[in-house]
């Protein structure tokens, strides 16, 4: 019987940081050069995605973000480089232990870092990391990842068709009997999210998303902007959670996935 993610983290053992992450061929330790990222800002939608309140991304902010991601921030940094776990292009490490960050709305990532720091979102690893970043650094790294694009790693093997159908159904129309609203209402068309406050689901790791739903259901995580995820997750069974997560993992997300490497 394998350790579940939950039991692992509760035991205080921080896996995959000290140990070598599961590196698949696609992961790179190189970050995207600022020049390339700035070019992406020319697209209205990307600019909107990256804007945090009144912070309009510019070259300096992107460069700072990249530095923070590589572990080289001014403040002495967190001692940690984001890329170690979250990948050079924000694609994660393939295991699903660490979520994809590429293309998440800037405001959303910034909020998560603040919530980690304050404890509003409990996480033994991220809290320490976030606390050691200054406010400017949190903004910068959030904006950086908002602009970055990378291919999705995995999934491997064939999907269970019944599960795909059930997950797709929940995603598109929810479930009347259980009173579960459709994910698409808030998480956008094809799960591409609704910046600034709603993250995308398409292309995010399935096991990560299932785990988050469990945390909402248990009341451990309750930091969503509209305070609706707990009530929704409480209506879901484990099977519902896995179905919708496995479904969305396989949905192509053109907003966050680079067309060419």
């Amino acid at each position, binding site marked *: 019987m394998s350790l579940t993610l939950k039991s692992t983290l509760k035991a205080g053992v921080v896996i995959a940081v000290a140990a070598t992450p599961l590196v698949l061929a696609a992961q790179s330790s190189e970050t995207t050069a600022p020049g390339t990222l700035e070019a992406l800002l020319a697209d209205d939608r990307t600019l909107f995605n990256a804007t945090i309140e009144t912070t309009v991304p510019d070259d300096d902010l992107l460069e700072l973000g990249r530095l923070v991601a590589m572990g080289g921030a001014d403040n002495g940094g967190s001692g940690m480089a984001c890329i170690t776990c979250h990948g050079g292009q924000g694609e994660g490490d393939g295991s699903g232990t660490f979520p994809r960050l590429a293309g998440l709305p800037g405001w959303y990532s910034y909020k998560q870092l603040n919530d980690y720091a304050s404890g509003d979102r409990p996480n033994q690893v991220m809290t320490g990391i976030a606390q050691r970043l200054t406010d400017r650094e949190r903004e910068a790294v959030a904006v950086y990842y908002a602009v970055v694009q990378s291919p999705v790693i995995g999934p491997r093997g064939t999907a269970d068709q019944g599960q795909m159908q059930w997950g797709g159904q929940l995603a598109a129309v*929810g479930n009347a009997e259980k009173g579960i609203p459709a994910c698409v*209402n808030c998480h956008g068309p094809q799960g591409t999210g609704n910046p600034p406050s709603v993250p995308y689901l398409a292309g995010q790791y399935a096991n990560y998303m299932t785990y988050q739903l469990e945390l909402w259901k248990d009341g451990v995580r309750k930091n969503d902007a*509209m305070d*609706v995820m707990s009530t929704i997750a409480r209506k879901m069974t484990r099977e519902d959670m896995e179905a919708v997560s496995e479904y969305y993992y396989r949905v192509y997300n053109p907003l966050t996935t680079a067309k060419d490497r």
Partner: protein
Amino acid sequence: MPDITLPKIDVVIVGGGWTGLTVAYELAHAGQRCVVLERGGHRHDATSFAGPEEHDELKYAIRHEHMIDVKQNTLTFRNGRDQRALPMRRLGSFLPGEGLGGAGIHWNGQIWRPLPSDLQMRSHYEDRYGAQFIPDDLNVQDWGVTYDELEPHLDFFERICGTAGYAGNLNGEQRAGGNVHEGPRRNEYPNPPMKQPIGPTLFGEAAARMGLNPFPMPSANVTAAYENPYGAQLHPCTYCGFCERFGCGYFAKADPIICVYDRIKEHENFEIRFRSTVLRIDKAADGQTATGVTYINAEGREVFQPADVVCMNAYGLWNVHLMLLSGLGTPYDPATGSGTVGRNYAYQTLAGVNVFFDEEIVTNPFMGAGALGTVIDDYNGDNFDHADLGFLGGAYVAATQYHGRPISYQPVPEGTPSWGAEWKRAVRENYLHHVGIGVHGSSMATPENFLDLDPTWTDAFGRPLLRMTFNFPENDRRMTDWVMQRAVEVARNMDNVRSVSSSNRAASGNDYSIVPYQTTHNTGGAVIGTDPATSVVNRYGQMWDHHNVFVFGACLFPQNLGYNPTGPLMGLAYWTLEHLKNEYLNNARPLMDA
């Protein structure tokens, strides 16, 4: 003869909307076996109203896909008895609903209370202004129920809906920022008010500068994650601007499905039958009671459902229609003035002010909700001195931001051509720089405005259509004219205003038309009261003529208030239920002497 006769049940409920599902919930929990008969089909917020497919202005707001199909059921209309009534061949002025939840699905979500003086309109006006003040040609009546008696029920419904607002009169304490004119309420609203965009905010600021009392519109588009007394979960409103005329996939607009139906559907005493159209209510031989209802079921068979109690919970107009078709009570005859069923039909009297801002003000009108706006109630009801004005009643005045849906929302300054190059330019130059102020006025009942059966046209089941005879009374024309001028004064006082224009639907010379949408607030026809000569039901909502028939909805209103009717009618519904449960069920009899 019916094809099928079913075993008798305790309560049969005609209609699966706000009142029908609520009656079923309360009576099922009181041990009564209830069956709801709904003409339309099943639907649910999760599956039927999920965005983005739901956010289709053409399909739902213009083609009316959530509302009744006039091919199945419509009515005929004329302005006066000197005309021939003709069918309403397309929906226009009002949009009744159909299906689970009825019009409660596509409503705006505005929740109001009647003023204490509204419920005793005749006594109050005569006391204050003298016995001669009310003209003979206005059938103004007291409801027979007081505000204090209704208060706990109005409060309960506000909590069922998670109403978002700020109390203006909390147990007698007046609070600025709320409606200081309202009757006293025992509880603060269950949720904080909605966030007001710039248009309504500027209106509120101007009103406050003028010594008026602006407040955020009370809203059933909830503002925080909320659990209602029945255990239903509602989610915060996203200001998506696809609110009224649409169902809410976010579970943010309180509706009968999420607030009530989901919480009762598994109960052993509850059953609902869809695609079941009630043809008539059947009377006992001695005419004192109803024996049950006859309906056409989903397979097209005629079914008789006997019951101890019959509850009429269809949309107000159709309750009256059903009474007329079934021979319940005595139909009103305007020639003689006798009879009460169909008498005192009223509507809502509207005017509007368009405010155009300069370029600095960007309103983003598409960020809207059905109950989003800032209101002043200083010109509603009898909140102001009517002595020298020559009319009764009043209106709320509100700068609202319901939606910016581009087919319907094309505000242009007065004098703009209605099509062509200039029109096109004006539409785009004003889209982001406008706010509308609505004057939402009361509607008095007159002997000439009434409902009866049409002699010529029929519905899909071959039954005579309801016939509506209505025009704006002079009283209401004067009232809206006066309040509209007050609204224009506020508009002219607002910051950053480039131009103001106004129009009164009920201006002198404008006949009421069923073509342009106004409100889905049709009231009266089965009026509540203490005198059987002028009412159809007694003060407990029980028919004078048939003591096991209880009636719900805005058809009970003797005249219409300057407010949306859902709040008051649900307050009445809970009031009726209290007496039905506690006094009628254990001893079936008339609860009031005639």
